[in-house]
């Protein structure tokens, strides 16, 4: 289907089904009204975007005929099975999003003081204005189709050690588009860790996950967001992170792609305040015909800020990786220190990698650098390892893992860091993402972590 037509149909569908939303709270209605106004302009942008591989362009991603759960029907999924994948089951406040419907588990019902989590369907009136302000810049199509979502709020000076984990599950026999949204509002001098995991249990069903994460990091606050994608080749995803940072705040974002179909990740970060630190990193292990595009725009507006970007891809088989990073240093952003790094390994003849690390600088008191390399594993290192009796394939795996290690080592949350090392190793060993084959192993390996 032609993309503009598909977008048009979504709009018509929403307008025709307005009766269904009669009981919706004000917030979703407001999102929808805004999206109806801005969508036509955004469609033009989708079409004009040549910076990502054709498969990751939004008009390609959204073009197939997906069903949408407008009636907000509860869907079923085997939550227990998802836990076997290794990432979940940490000690955390857990929420499960099945399709696009939010479920709170018992651990998320008893929250410590200062931490509040709501479904967007029953968000208290007093927080609506905040949630709407934080969501100001969101993908219009996601806003249009949204029927549920999560609002996380940390009050001033509350430092929450235990992470909030959100597990996105998908199980359906019909092709579905699932709009998901997480709004994170971190008050002044607060600290919060959020873990996002994507899983799918329907290998045969085409699925598009459209997820928008909106973050506001207030003064002196620290927010860490870790995202792990381990779904099916039939699951495609459009993931958008929009964040703004106030004075002396810290934002850490890390995405790990272990399994999935076509993934288009977007990061839009506005560093408005002075003295901020931003760390943006991502790693992807791509095999088969998987495609991942990471597109990051980091805009420095405040003084004395520093930012680090590190993206690494290991591309095997016929997979295709893409990195597009842009650091903008505005005239007001004096003494900015920005570094952007992209390293890629092409491990087979048909693998492809595109990189576009860009700098846009309007200020002279600045230190900015970027580097991008695409190449292979060091032949000498391989030879050395072989001469020590390590089979070539094993040596390649070890070197690839070592190549990925510094992205994972960036993660300050130790439990997750250890687990990611294990997961990446398993991934490189070719272990299937399907839980049925590895459930016990996962548990025994990681239960103690």
């Amino acid at each position, binding site marked *: 289907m032609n993309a503009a037509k598909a977008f048009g149909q979504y709009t018509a569908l929403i307008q025709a089904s307005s009766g269904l939303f009669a009981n919706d709270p004000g917030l979703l209605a407001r999102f929808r009204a805004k999206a109806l106004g801005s969508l036509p302009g955004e469609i033009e942008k989708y079409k004009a975007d040549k910076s990502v591989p054709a498969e990751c362009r939004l008009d390609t991603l959204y073009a197939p005929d997906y069903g949408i759960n407008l009636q907000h029907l509860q869907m079923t999924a085997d939550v227990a099975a998802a836990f076997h994948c290794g990432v979940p089951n940490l000690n955390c406040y857990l929420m499960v999003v099945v399709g696009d419907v939010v479920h709170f588990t018992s651990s998320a019902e008893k929250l410590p003081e200062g931490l509040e989590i709501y479904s967007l369907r029953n968000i208290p009136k007093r927080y609506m204005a905040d949630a709407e302000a934080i969501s100001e810049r969101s993908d219009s199509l996601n806003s249009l189709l949204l029927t549920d979502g999560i609002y996380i709020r940390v009050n001033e000076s509350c430092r929450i050690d235990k992470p909030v984990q959100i597990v996105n599950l998908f199980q359906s026999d019909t092709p579905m588009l699932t709009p998901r949204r997480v709004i994170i509002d971190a008050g002044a001098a607060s600290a919060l860790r959020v873990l996002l995991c994507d899983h799918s249990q329907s290998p045969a069903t085409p699925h598009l996950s459209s997820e928008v994460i909106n973050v506001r990091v207030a003064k002196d606050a620290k927010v860490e967001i870790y995202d792990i994608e381990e779904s099916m080749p039939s699951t495609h995803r459009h993931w958008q992170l929009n964040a703004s940072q106030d004075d002396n705040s810290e934002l850490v974002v890390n995405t790990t792609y272990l399994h999935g179909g076509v993934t288009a990740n977007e990061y839009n970060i506005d560093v408005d305040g002075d003295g901020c630190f931003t760390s943006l990193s991502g790693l992807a292990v791509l095999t088969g015909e998987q495609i991942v595009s990471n597109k990051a725009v980091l805009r420095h507006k405040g003084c004395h800020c520093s930012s680090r970007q590190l993206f690494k891809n290991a591309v095997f088989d016929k997979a295709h990786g893409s990195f597009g990073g842009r650091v903008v240093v505005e*005239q007001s952003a004096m003494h900015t220190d920005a570094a952007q790094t992209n390293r*890629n390994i*092409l*491990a*087979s*003849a*048909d*693998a*492809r*990698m*595109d*990189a*576009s*690390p*860009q*700098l*846009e*600088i*309007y*200020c*002279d*008191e*600045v*230190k*900015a*650098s*970027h*580097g*991008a*390399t*695409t*190449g*292979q594993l060091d032949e000498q290192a391989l030879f050395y390892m072989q001469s020590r009796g390590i089979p070539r394939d094993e040596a390649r795996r070890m070197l690839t893992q070592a190549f990925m290690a510094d992205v994972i080592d960036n993660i300050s949350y130790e439990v997750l860091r250890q687990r990611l090392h294990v997961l990446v190793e398993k991934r490189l060993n070719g272990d299937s993402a399907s839980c049925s084959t590895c459930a016990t192993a996962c548990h025994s390996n990681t239960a103690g972590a």
Partner: protein
Amino acid sequence: MNETPTKPDTTDDILSQTTSGEYKYGFTSDIDTDIIPAGLSEDVVRLISKKKGEPEWLLDFRLKAYRHWLTLEPPTWAHLKIPPIDFQAISYYAAPKNSERPKSLDEVDPALIDTFNRLGIPLEEQKQLSGMAVDAVMDSVSVQTTHRERLAELGIIFCSFSEAVREYPDLVRKYLGKVVSYRDNFYAALNSAVFSDGSFVYIPKGVRCPMELSTYFRINASGTGQFERTLIVADDDAYVSYLEGCTAPMRDENQLHAAIVEIIVEDRAEVKYSTVQNWYAGDAEGRGGVYNFVTKRGLCRGDYSKLSWTQVETGSAITWKYPSCILAGQGAVGEFYSVAVTNKMQQADTGTKMIHIGSNTRSTIVSKGISAGNSQNSYRGLVKVAPQAEGVRNYTQCDSLLLSPTCGAHTFPVIEVANSSAVVEHEATTSKISEDQIFYCNQRGIPTEEAVGLIVNGYAKEVMNKLPMEFAVEAQKLLEITLEGSVG
């Protein structure tokens, strides 16, 4: 210009003076020129072709290009603010009125000779001293070609484009539009339709051109665009070094310059193409200046062929230029060395494309941007490795130096690798001149102004070294003029 140079105390003071540098080549020479009325239509294209007495096939080529141009829109993707250009307000042909080609220097209009002398390229002198052969293109017709005889002995053809069309139609027809097709882009189509003259170089098999070939471009008449076309063919085992320099007089309105350079490099041949571009950049408020929209591309068709671009870009109000290499032969080598300086209200979006198609091809990109005043300076580059290209190697380095708080320096590299044996590296840094470096120089008794000059020259040296001697001196001079006030 500051009448009485006061001793500036701080770097900022010195840097703020950069806007005072005046364009030294801003004079117009009163030479009779034959200008056709402004506007562009099929009739104009036919008129240009007729005035130049061109054969039917070339007129066809022009008309095809013109018809294709009508279907195109000016490109908008560059990081440039280009005011709308009225293509009907430009005169597409201006030739010095001298219907007969001069046989010797005596026949050339003395005013024209004087112009060249003021530009620093006295033809006679260069003939004897520098060993260069100069083909000067003023407005649109090539006026004088020197050293023809000596080159002819070796079988080298170096002449104006119109002459080549008359005398070597088969060669021109064989290669014209083979690297930059008229369908390539908006300005390439426009140039293909209305190009008035340019240079043609053919180096036969196994010949090493004994001297540097040089062309000097200058837009003289007001309200005219210059659309020259350069075609260089280096046959097997040939070598040539080609120099191109550009200046334009100071005028209030903008002048359009849309040129095409096509280079074909055969087996084991080598072409070195150096440019010093100093078109008028407009005044401090951004009035006037040349729009320099150029398509330059070389096809390294032969195995182990080599093409090297070196450019020093100091002029033009707007520069839109990406000298590129298509590395099709086995083991072909592409190089790109660039210094781009922008000052006042100048805008530059320049860089290169290295397209690796053959196996074991190598490319090096070194780009140095210097921004001052309120200018915007962008590097834009593409390194592409085709699936069949084994063992490709690329190294890219693009650095930017910021000399004022209101200028901009941007980097837009694109790397597309579709072969796993490729090693592609990109590195870039952006910074201002460090206070420490200046302090160190001051401490050693070097005034700040000189220190900035030293540092900028040192920064650009890597590229300047690649220029032929004769050009390096001029380029250094240009750098100084462009950054006058900050460079001692």
